[in-house]
């Protein structure tokens, strides 16, 4: 598994490192920390120092002999095409990367280039969900990333993970991510199936829900299934986002949720969520 974490020097970035460490450690993931600066011929001092500090902080969450990552010893940033980078290779690879350009654009580009399975970023609660004064950075990344995206607004224990499911395919990686969130938050999991009225696909969704229910029940994870009508999904999801972490499966061409959720809806979710939003692909 590969995790790309987009970071800046703000507090919302600093706060997510512990969660990133636990997710990365549990999934034994290769990790890339990405910092994006507007321009410049060398890495900005504050950003490069922040990325190094985040890296050290993350390594610090593991015991001496159990970290899959090595600390970076040589802190001289290497020019690599348009990027500056540092890396270490322990059991797993850790890369720090600085690029110039727009945050959303570069995050999407790097996610594609490194074959990331998950992008993680924090955001401020100010004005809903904001990144360094801009409102559309988390939204663009959540909407357009080629992989799953976790936007963490506030690092706090969520009572439950509400996983909204439609007929799109459920990948093993996405399942694993949901497992990790459940473990991370010691939370229950609500599996909500969205069905269109008079749709034959309802059976398919029910089958998938029951499979998931059994999967989690066998692992002694509190899980519940609930079916809702497509007409009610937007209100339901908005209300749910206040109670816990909403995980939306938006993969595949068949995705009903993708069709139902306008850009403004994801925006609204990012605004209403009190903890985090996970877009699964």
């Amino acid at each position, binding site marked *: 598994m590969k995790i790309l974490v987009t970071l800046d020097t703000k507090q919302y970035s600093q706060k997510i490192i512990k969660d990133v460490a636990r997710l990365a450690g549990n999934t034994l993931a290769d990790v890339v920390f990405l910092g994006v600066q507007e321009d410049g011929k060398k890495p900005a001092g504050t950003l490069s120092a922040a990325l190094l500090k985040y890296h050290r902080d993350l390594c610090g969450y593991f015991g001496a002999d159990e970290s899959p990552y090595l600390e970076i010893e040589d802190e001289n940033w290497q020019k690599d095409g348009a990027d500056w980078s540092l890396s270490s290779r322990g059991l797993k690879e850790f890369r720090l990367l600085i690029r110039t350009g727009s945050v959303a654009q570069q995050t999407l580009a790097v996610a594609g280039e490194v074959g990331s399975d998950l992008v993680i970023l924090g955001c401020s609660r100010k004005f809903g969900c904001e990144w360094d004064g801009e409102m559309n950075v988390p939204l663009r990344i959540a909407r357009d990333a080629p992989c799953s995206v976790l936007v963490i607004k506030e690092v706090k224990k969520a009572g439950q993970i509400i996983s909204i499911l439609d007929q799109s395919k459920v990948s093993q990686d996405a399942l694993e991510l949901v497992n990790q969130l459940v473990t991370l938050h010691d939370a229950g999991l609500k599996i909500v199936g969205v069905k269109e009225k008079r749709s034959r696909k309802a059976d398919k969704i029910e*089958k998938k829900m*029951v499979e998931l*229910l059994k999967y989690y*029940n066998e692992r002694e*994870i*509190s899980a*519940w299934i*609930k*079916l809702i009508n497509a007409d*009610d999904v937007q209100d339901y999801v908005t209300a749910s986002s206040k109670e816990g972490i909403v995980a939306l499966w938006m993969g595949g061409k068949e995705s009903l949720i993708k069709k139902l959720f306008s850009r403004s809806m994801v925006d609204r979710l990012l605004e209403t969520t009190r903890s985090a939003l996970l877009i699964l692909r």
Partner: protein
Amino acid sequence: MLKTLLYIEEDLASSIALRFTGYLNKFIPLSLFVIHVEEPDAKDHVGGGLVQKAWEEGVSASGRRAVDRMLRTENIDCPLAGRPKIFVGNRTEEIIYELRSGTYQLHIEGYLDTADPEQFWAMLSSPLYTQAPCPILVVKNLSISKKCALLCADSVDPRKLVEKSMEVLGESTFGFDIVYFKFREQEELQLLDREEGGSNLRDCVALLGEHGKKADNMTVVSGTPEQVGDYLKDYALVASTLPGRKSMRMFTLANSLASVLLVH
């Protein structure tokens, strides 16, 4: 041993019901029987006498194969007390007849659709539920909880709730909470002072004591049926008297993510 009749179709609701029954058996030793009814369309009926009998045997054999497949797939940790009972005819009539003639103490069936309270009400007001001679457990979800809730409210007869529930749960090793429901439209669920439960709540506690049980928690919850239904999810099952009308308590049970034990 609690003599129990579990209804099985070859569907997802039955798959959950079977698994939950296996789980329930860890807390209440069950003497488990399985029933399935093949309901042929009117146009399927053929002839009479021997022809009719041969046709019924064919339909019945097909039902038996379906039940066997389900039992093999789920392979639950609860042995059957007898061969699956396969009938051809009207589902409600056959189940009620079997419940009466077999003097069962509990009937179990699965229910998957939580989207529509109207559908839940249609089920609760159907002849099977209103005429069943024993409590019915509606399995909605699987669980890893070791607790049950007794759902009390102003409209609930505490004696009926506790005594009838204890006929099923009295010998179990489940822990018990009493949840007192008060309807109120508000943004978030509120937990009120225990005094708000009034004499009904006090009676429930006392009656439970008469059955040698102690409520671990007595909670007065105030909110909408959706909020309270969600609150109940942490229980293995919620025991309630059968609502006689489309009350807020009925909507709460419809929204409950936990399985529902209906007594009357």
